[in-house]
């Protein structure tokens, strides 16, 4: 469904992606694992058409996203649901209106139909009772579930999740995992998860890419990733302190730096 070929993206002369190759299969949950700062959010933005790659292309159903016209892009985005890391609920609307927002914007449904749809979507994430609350009254976990209800309001074909598990307590995490899984089942949508929470991601993904330093260092089913022989992949999924990825950022030798007497 999404095909990424030879993708490179540079910011301030630093490569965030270098020659990235990936395929997101229709109807499956694909996960991208990578340490923080590896540009995962940037990748989602490129898929959503907010950023353009400098080299290579991203294709959605065979169409290059970066060269879509404005109306094509907005049409494509109607089929896209994205769950942001910060939930990004609209603070000037209450929970009900947040979920109703895409429906009001993109459909001509009657008030009654919108009301029913919103309540169904909220019910799907177990928060029908929170409809009249303001976003500021929600806990982090609830806010993310509301954001999920909003993301699926238009029954999108493609769901993007940006760090869905970060900062969640174990219970909300469990709820989110089962929600993501069941949603991709009931909506028959294609899901793409970017995350650095290894174990949670591995439990729901059908196919996993591990990226590091702007390129794919490992890919396969969760089982294959866990059994990977690559030391980098092993270090990342086990969270060991030292390995191919150094704990210390490049710096002068500690001893030398400490010995220097400051001039003033």
């Amino acid at each position, binding site marked *: 469904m999404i095909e990424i070929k030879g993708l490179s993206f540079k910011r301030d002369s630093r490569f965030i992606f270098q020659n990235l190759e990936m395929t997101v299969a229709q109807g499956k949950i694909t996960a991208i694992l990578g340490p923080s700062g590896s540009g995962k959010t940037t990748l989602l933005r490129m898929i959503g058409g907010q950023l353009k790659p400098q080299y290579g292309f991203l294709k959605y159903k065979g169409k290059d996203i970066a060269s879509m016209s404005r109306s094509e892009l907005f049409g494509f*985005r*109607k089929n*896209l649901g994205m769950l*942001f890391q910060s939930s*990004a609920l609209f603070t000037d609307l209450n929970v009900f209106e947040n979920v109703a927002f895409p429906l009001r*914007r993109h459909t001509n449904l009657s008030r009654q139909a919108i009301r029913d749809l919103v309540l169904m979507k909220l019910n799907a994430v177990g928060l029908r009772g929170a409809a009249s609350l303001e976003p500021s009254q929600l806990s982090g976990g609830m806010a993310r579930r509301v954001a999920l209800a909003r993301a699926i309001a238009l029954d999108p074909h493609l769901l993007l999740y940006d760090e869905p598990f970060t900062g969640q307590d174990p219970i909300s995490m469990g709820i989110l995992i089962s929600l993501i899984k069941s949603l991709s089942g009931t909506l028959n949508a294609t899901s793409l998860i970017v995350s650095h929470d290894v174990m949670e991601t591995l439990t729901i993904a059908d196919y996993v890419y591990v990226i590091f330093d702007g390129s794919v260092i490992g890919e396969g089913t969760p089982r294959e990733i866990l059994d990977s022989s690559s030391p980098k992949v092993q270090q990342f999924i086990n969270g060991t302190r030292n390995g191919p990825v150094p704990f210390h950022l490049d710096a002068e030798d500690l001893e030398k730096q400490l010995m220097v007497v400051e001039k003033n």
Partner: protein
Amino acid sequence: MIALLDRLGVWALNYLSRLGRATSMWFTSVAHIPHGQDMHLVLNQLHHVGVRSVLIIVLSAFSIGAVIALQFHTQLSRFGAEDAVGLGLTLTLLRELGPVVTGLLFAGRAGSAITAEIGLMKTTEQLSSMEMMGVDPLYRIVAPRLWAGIISMPLLTIIFNVVGIFGGFIVAVQWLGSDPGGFWSGMQAGVELWNDIGKGLLKSLLFALVITWIAVFQGYDTEPTAEGVGLATTRTVVLSSVVVLAMDFFLTLIMYGDF
């Protein structure tokens, strides 16, 4: 030397590209005249930037009117020209202080709030998520605020002027005992509909365009961090105030200058 030129060049390019982005943002959003379901967004914003600024406008206008009347009265009564207090006060308010002080208060009260709100929306990815939903934040977020600001400012200026005159009336007539007939007739003989009232309101409309433009752009272009939003808010107030004062000088020169 070369390094200095280089820095200057980079600065100028950055500045120009910011100006370009700000201009294109303004035209894109203002061209979107809200209609249909967007009308209630404008209404909400009229409430936020207009209604909520009324209190501070009324309080400031009253005290400024009172103070001007007091000063004029003490000076003019030495020449027995108390009747000129009403006219002097009114012209000062209509031509200068009404639009300028309303502009400054508006920048501090509403402009900063607009910047902070939009900046926070950007920081919390609300703008980005809206875009991902296929809704242009320039239409949904920026346009209603621009329009509400442009509508509110002249209305607030009118209220400011009237409350200021009322404050002056209280001081000059009720308190210092000027003749009310002289107060009003002096005013009526000297105030002209277009030259004084009209041009003053035109000034406030121009201030409104600039203040809302600055406020909205600073919010939209903010660094998406808590610190960035803080800085952007400060910049809105400082920049709008300076621009309003500078603009006022040139507008006065053009409108009332003799050349």
